[in-house]
């Protein structure tokens, strides 16, 4: 038993929902009690999806437990197949259904569902979490759809350079992008364009936007790109083992990683390395000029970024990438690195060790907040959880990883990967900090009376914690309202008390309106009654 206040990851069946909701033509029947439908709002609200996730819940209640919940599972499956006509069906259970052991997958296997592929998901809810569940679901789905295509053991592995002999362009799959993943939509677009520039086609993107028939085409590609190892790791490994498909492991976030990714890809596909990707004597390559980050980072205004202390926490992929970019490409000093992805803890530890740090592997946000406070950073790169912690500590923060908030799904194209992703990263990490000249000037004018304490930047994210006005001062004497020339209107204690209950951010407006109303009505005293009168008066 462990105490959890806020969690980084949901249960594993939410990972399965991410796969189903990312795809087209897939439906997920989830044996789950009433209430588990809450997960729909993650997709319809955070991702602003215009349709419900393709999930049918059995929503059993206590009275069903005495009866036949297995029958409920079967009728739910039959109804879902009839209504949604899926091209593939996922069947699974949430934590409570796991305990009652109806085994929905086995039940589905006994049903005549018109021959659609059915994948039974066993996602242990009491030991695993969301990303694991997503990875397992993608793996089971791909495996289920491709098992008839697996070449017999001993057959020679396909040559990733066979595209040449076949007289076509090389092609790869982009695996791992999903809903509720960080900027996946835009990364896919950026990487697809990047590859097109080198004459490489994208065969299948999955799960985002893929249909089951697309998954069946996975083996037609020459290699797989594990774009998000948290979700794509297991399926890429299986495709490597079963189909001999090579996996490109470098995640192209940041300048160095994007160049390394392209070099790895060219190597795997047997493509000649273009001159612009060759490393020059100074370690750069010509291609990196496609991004503004290297020059912006070298430009004089960025001098002030040198040695800025940065604390990094997120999923493994984004945390490791952020550490590399921060330390090498922006000249920050990484003072803390960690991840909640226990499955990738080894990689995070290695990245931390390179920076002379010990990685924090934890899903306890209070431990992360404590480590953050201890490290005293000037910038936090984290998830929405760290954004809140950083806000409390008064430290600027940029979000680099799931879990997401609705604001992490921006309207504009805003990738993290590739050259444009590096541009986005430069802007979004540097803007929360004071700009160079600005910092200098503030230091100079700090003692002038106009200087407002806590001023850090033009961005609200960097402002000091708000000092909420308190009601203590209002309880004593009636406060005269300042109305020049027109006599004095007085607030009665109960009027002030009523006013104090109004949220602080609209209190000023309410005070002004009420005084205007009192003047209009010729009232000398504003009591709670007058406040409500004014409220009704100003109702739109």
């Amino acid at each position, binding site marked *: *038993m462990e*105490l*959890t*206040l*806020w*969690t980084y990851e*949901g*249960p594993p*069946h*939410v990972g399965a929902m991410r796969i189903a909701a990312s795809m087209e033509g897939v439906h997920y029947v989830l044996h789950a*009690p*009433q*209430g*588990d*439908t*809450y*997960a*729909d*709002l*993650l997709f*319809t*609200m955070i991702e602003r999806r*215009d*349709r*419900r996730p393709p999930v*049918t819940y059995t*929503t*059993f*209640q*206590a009275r069903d*437990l005495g009866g036949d919940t297995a029958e*409920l599972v079967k*009728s*739910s499956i039959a*109804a879902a197949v009839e*209504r949604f006509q899926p091209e593939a069906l996922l069947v699974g259970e*949430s*934590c*409570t259904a796991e*305990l*009652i052991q109806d085994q929905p997958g086995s039940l589905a296997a006994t049903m005549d569902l018109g021959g659609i592929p059915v994948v039974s998901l066993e996602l*242990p*809810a*009491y*030991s695993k*979490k969301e990303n694991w569940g997503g990875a397992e679901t993608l793996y089971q789905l791909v495996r289920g759809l491709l098992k008839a295509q697996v070449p017999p053991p001993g057959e020679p592995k396909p040559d990733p350079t066979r595209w040449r002999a076949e007289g076509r362009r090389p092609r790869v799959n982009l695996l791992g992008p999903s809903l509720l993943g960080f900027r996946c939509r835009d990364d896919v677009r950026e990487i697809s364009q990047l590859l097109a520039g080198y004459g490489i086609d994208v065969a299948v993107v999955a799960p985002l936007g893929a249909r089951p028939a697309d998954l069946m085409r996975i083996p037609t590609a020459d290699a797989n790109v594990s774009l998000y190892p948290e979700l794509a790791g297991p399926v890429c490994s299986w495709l490597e083992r079963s189909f001999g498909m090579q996996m490109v492991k470098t995640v192209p976030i940041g300048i160095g990683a994007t160049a390394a990714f392209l070099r790895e890809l060219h190597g795997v596909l047997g493509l000649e390395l273009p001159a612009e990707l060759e490393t020059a004597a100074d370690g750069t390559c010509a291609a990196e000029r496609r991004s503004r980050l290297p020059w912006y980072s070298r430009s004089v205004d960025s001098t002030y970024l040198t040695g800025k202390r940065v604390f990094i926490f997120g999923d493994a992929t984004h945390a490791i990438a952020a550490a590399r970019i921060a330390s090498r490409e922006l000249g920050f000093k990484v003072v803390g690195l960690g991840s909640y992805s226990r499955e990738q803890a080894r990689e995070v530890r290695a990245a931390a060790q390179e920076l002379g740090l010990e990685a924090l592997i934890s899903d306890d946000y*209070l431990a992360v907040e404590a480590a953050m406070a201890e490290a005293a950073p000037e910038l936090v790169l984290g998830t929405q*959880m760290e954004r*809140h912690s950083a806000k*409390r500590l008064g430290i600027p923060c940029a979000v680099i990883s799931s879990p997401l*908030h609705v604001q992490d799904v921006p309207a504009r194209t805003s990738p993290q990967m590739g050259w444009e992703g590096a541009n986005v990263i430069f802007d979004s990490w540097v803007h929360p900090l004071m700009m160079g000249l600005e910092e200098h000037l503030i230091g100079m004018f700090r003692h002038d009376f106009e200087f407002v304490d806590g001023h850090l930047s033009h961005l609200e994210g960097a402002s000091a914690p708000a000092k909420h006005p308190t009601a203590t001062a209002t309880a004593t004497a009636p406060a005269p309202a300042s109305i020049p020339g027109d006599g004095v209107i007085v607030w009665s204690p109960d009027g002030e008390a*009523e006013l104090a*209950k*109004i949220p602080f951010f609209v209190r000023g407006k309410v005070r002004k309106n009420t005084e205007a109303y009192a003047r209009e009505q010729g009232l000398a005293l504003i009591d*709670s009654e007058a406040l*409500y*009168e004014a409220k*009704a008066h100003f*109702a*739109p």
Partner: protein
Amino acid sequence: MGASSVIGDMTTGLAEQPPLQLFKESGQREVFCGLTSIVWLHRRMPDAFFLVVGSRTCAHLVQSAAGVMIFAEPRFGTAILGERDLAGLADANDELDRLVKDLLERRPEIRTLFLVGSCPSEVIKLDLAKAAERLNTQLAGRVMVLNYSGSGIETTFTQGEDQALLAMVPLMPSSEVDQLLIVGTLADAVEDRLVQLFGRLGIPVVTSLPPRRSTELPPIGPGTRVLLAQPFLSATARALVSRGGQLLTAPYPFGVEGSRAWMAAGAAAFGVAPALVAEVLDPLVERGQRAIAPHRELLAGKRLFLLPDSQLELSLARFLQRECGMELVEVGTPYLDRQLLDAELALLPPGTRITEGQDVERQLERVRAERPDLVVCGLGLANPLEAEGIATKWSIELVFSPIHGCDQAGDLAELFARSLRRRAALSFS
């Protein structure tokens, strides 16, 4: 799956009018479970902690329903059951004791700890009543430990509050004192206002359940008139009656009509002269109507479909139909407690279609077929319906916003008018 049947007619007071149409439906229910109530209960009682004993799903649900993480350390959390706890209940009890001890050491300001049962804890039959008893002995009065179930297999959404209040009833001191007890969480400002108004009606002692401080429970006894501020407190109401309280029946205090009738019921129970009631309340009613008027202009004649969610649906339907002039297409409700909702049912227009329970796919088919002007629904359904061109008002806002009383009637109408007003305000040509 999915069944729908007419289960009966209800005569409205007027015999010649067609009765309400009452349907019962079963199938997939798109509703929250009772754990969700923690989101507003913990704000009402800042000295209480709500510890869900459940799974990662429970933690994720409460977090997602709360929307944003605004608290450094929230006064709610989940004791997540692990495989070891499932293997042996003895271990689970030890683990729970250890975890509670750690938690209370960390949060010394906590006076009341609610152990909240969940679907998994109910299914494995982890006895939280016994756990509470055991912990109370260990803690020796320093912290009061209570338990209730907010599990989805037993409760929907607002029923969680009913169960939490029910758990507090046995601790209420017995007293014969004449008092009006308002039951159900209200925003503090709204509560102050209602207490003040009851004061003007000459009712001197007005108390609340839940109280603002968990340790300051109101008394209960034969002198207590129980006035429910929320229509979802069935079990609590019964328990208060069994402790001697007298349950008043009235429409609920939404809109000026409901609020007036609700306050008048409280006044009548104390023999307040109708003339005084009129003197105090009628100006409020008149003012409230003025506040509603601009919204009524927009809402009148518009067709409304309420999906089952917060259990406020019948009261809201009554308000929106009678005071805002809306036409009711269908009124869904998670469950129907006729004893508590009699007064509301009597005010609904004849022929109103009421659906108890849910088969969400079939209900959405009816929504699409009817093309209502406004649908009240949960957050999981709102954007998909908007994308189909159907205006929505998401219902969770109704349990977080101050909407009770005559003074809030305009605000309540505005919540519904806003959706339509916004649609009209947008133009991309």
